[in-house]
């Protein structure tokens, strides 16, 4: 009887494995298809794409969409601004969060409880859109590049992730360095930081992805300043133009002016350009954000 029970379990297991395989296949297809489809459309002739039915490969291959996108002055500016805010923003965030995390992770620090509480509160309470906008206006951060990198520089969450990691480093390292006469900055720079590179990488990645993908701040604070536009904001404008005017009206327009691109195909090209760096990089960096997430999940 025991044997038949085992056999039955095996039979059901086979059904389970097959169903699971189908589920995973569906999951992968649903995840990848829209992205591949966008790439295919971005290489397709605009007028031809209106007919629909393009799936994994372009029907009438062209590079015109990319030529159009890259020819726009706004896109060039946006690319430079986006790269700048990603690099500067990540560097500033890393430096400040790491230093603050070092301070609050010192076990002997007299005010560690108070300082930690001060930052934890910021995770749960915020002033809201309007007071923040007025504050930035008063600080002359609106209509400037710095609104992208200064306000969100220190985030309590990232800081606490670093703190948790630093707390796991044995105190003896700090103590022996202190005996050799090292000050706090030396200990932070020469002893703790080299050991924290994995968590530094994690936080930098979080910030970099956030910076790369932001669009709302560009729309809200720098709407009037084309020189501070970002890639995502330009993409957002393209998206809105596609949605509002609808496919057909636009296609008529491009037929009339003799060009073979439509807002849909141009937007696809811009989308591909914007997501390309991230899609190329993330598989190689995945082990860093996985560590970061698991540290962040078991916070105190």
């Amino acid at each position, binding site marked *: 009887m025991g044997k038949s029970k085992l056999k039955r379990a095996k039979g059901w297991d086979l059904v389970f*494995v097959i169903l699971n395989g189908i589920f995973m296949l569906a999951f992968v297809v649903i995840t990848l298809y829209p992205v591949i489809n966008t790439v295919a459309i971005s290489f397709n002739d605009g007028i031809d794409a209106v007919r629909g039915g393009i799936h994994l490969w372009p029907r009438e291959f062209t590079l015109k969409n990319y030529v159009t996108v890259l020819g726009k002055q706004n896109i060039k500016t946006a690319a430079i601004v986006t790269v700048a805010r990603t690099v500067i923003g990540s560097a500033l965030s890393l430096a400040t969060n790491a230093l603050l995390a070092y*301070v609050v992770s010192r*076990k002997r620090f007299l*005010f560690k409880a108070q300082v930690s509480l001060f930052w934890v509160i910021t995770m749960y309470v915020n*002033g809201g859109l309007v*007071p923040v906008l007025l*504050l930035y206006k008063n600080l002359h951060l609106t209509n400037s590049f710095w609104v992208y990198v200064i306000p969100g520089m220190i985030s309590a969450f990232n800081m606490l992730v670093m703190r948790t990691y630093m707390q796991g480093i044995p105190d003896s390292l700090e103590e022996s360095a202190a005996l050799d006469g090292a000050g706090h900055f030396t200990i932070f720079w020469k002893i703790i930081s080299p050991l924290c590179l994995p968590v530094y990488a994690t936080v930098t990645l979080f910030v970099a992805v956030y910076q790369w993908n932001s*669009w709302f701040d560009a729309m809200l604070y720098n709407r009037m300043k084309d020189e501070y536009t970002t890639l995502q904001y330009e993409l957002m404008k393209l998206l809105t133009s596609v949605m509002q005017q609808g496919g057909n009206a636009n296609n008529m327009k491009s037929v009339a002016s003799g060009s073979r691109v439509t807002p849909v195909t141009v937007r696809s090209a811009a989308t591909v350009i914007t997501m390309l760096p991230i899609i190329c990089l993330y*598989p190689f960096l995945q082990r860093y954000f996985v560590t970061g997430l698991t540290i962040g999940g078991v916070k105190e």
Partner: protein
Amino acid sequence: MSQETSASVKRARKKKNDEYKVKTSMAEVKRQSFLIVTSAIFLVYGFIFYYVPLGGWIMAFENYKPKTGLLHSKWVGLAKFKFLFEDATFIRVIRNTLAMGVLNLVATFFMAILFAILLNEVRTTLIKKGIQTISYMPHFLSWIIVTGILHDALSANGVVNEIIQAFGGTPIMFFSETKYFWPIVAFANVWKETGWNAIIYLAAITSIDPCLYEAASIDGAGRLSKIFHITLPSIRPTIMILLLINVGNVLNAGFEVQYLLGNDVIKSVSDTIDIYVLNWGISQSDFSLGTAAGIFKSVVSIILIVIANNMAKRAGEERLF
């Protein structure tokens, strides 16, 4: 069991803290001058960017005019809040925000746990790693890109309508009927975040003692019963703590997708509190009303966090604070 361990952990932590109890003395302050000065500088920064905006909440209680400023604008008490709760639109955006927030929470939670458990049952390491890598790709795409992709897929000649037509149905105009909007938003969130949210469950599953599975196999348990009797109970604490964190965020789930995918035809179901704040506070420049609506959202969020926290405490689960 969990209560006992958490108590012992607490005791151990307390002991550890006592060891490091440092007496406040001039010498100690001097020794820690670097720490004190550094944290003070960051305190100034934090005060300006996180605490000063809270002072702006005063605007909600006066008829704020940029010309007269915060101190000299006319005090109106709760008039702005009264306007809010008499405004049918505001009641509707509260409903939309809550409905979409809860729908998103349930859908993304369920899918992440399901995906993590099922992926764990894939035995070939290479395939498993491959699927996982693909699964969190959407997390790194911006909402602009995700909504754009979704808009294409659901448009009149998009792939979804192609499939519907292939099965003999009539094409659906997804963005001009109110009944489709909430499911579309939930699907967008599931598509973007399932793989990412599953990471933490997969990490929890990895730490389950393999002996448990072996013992169950000897007793003749199939895969399904192992999932229900070993995997799920083992990741229960993780599920609870994540649920807790996310309940406080329910009201925050309502801006980007709704702003990007909403349109005038379906405004009645797509507008959320954040969009309301944007419309009144920024576009209409009624700073006071925008602030009042923002305060309402903050206060409700905090209440939700406290309730969730207390419920977790009563259930003997881990807490946030």
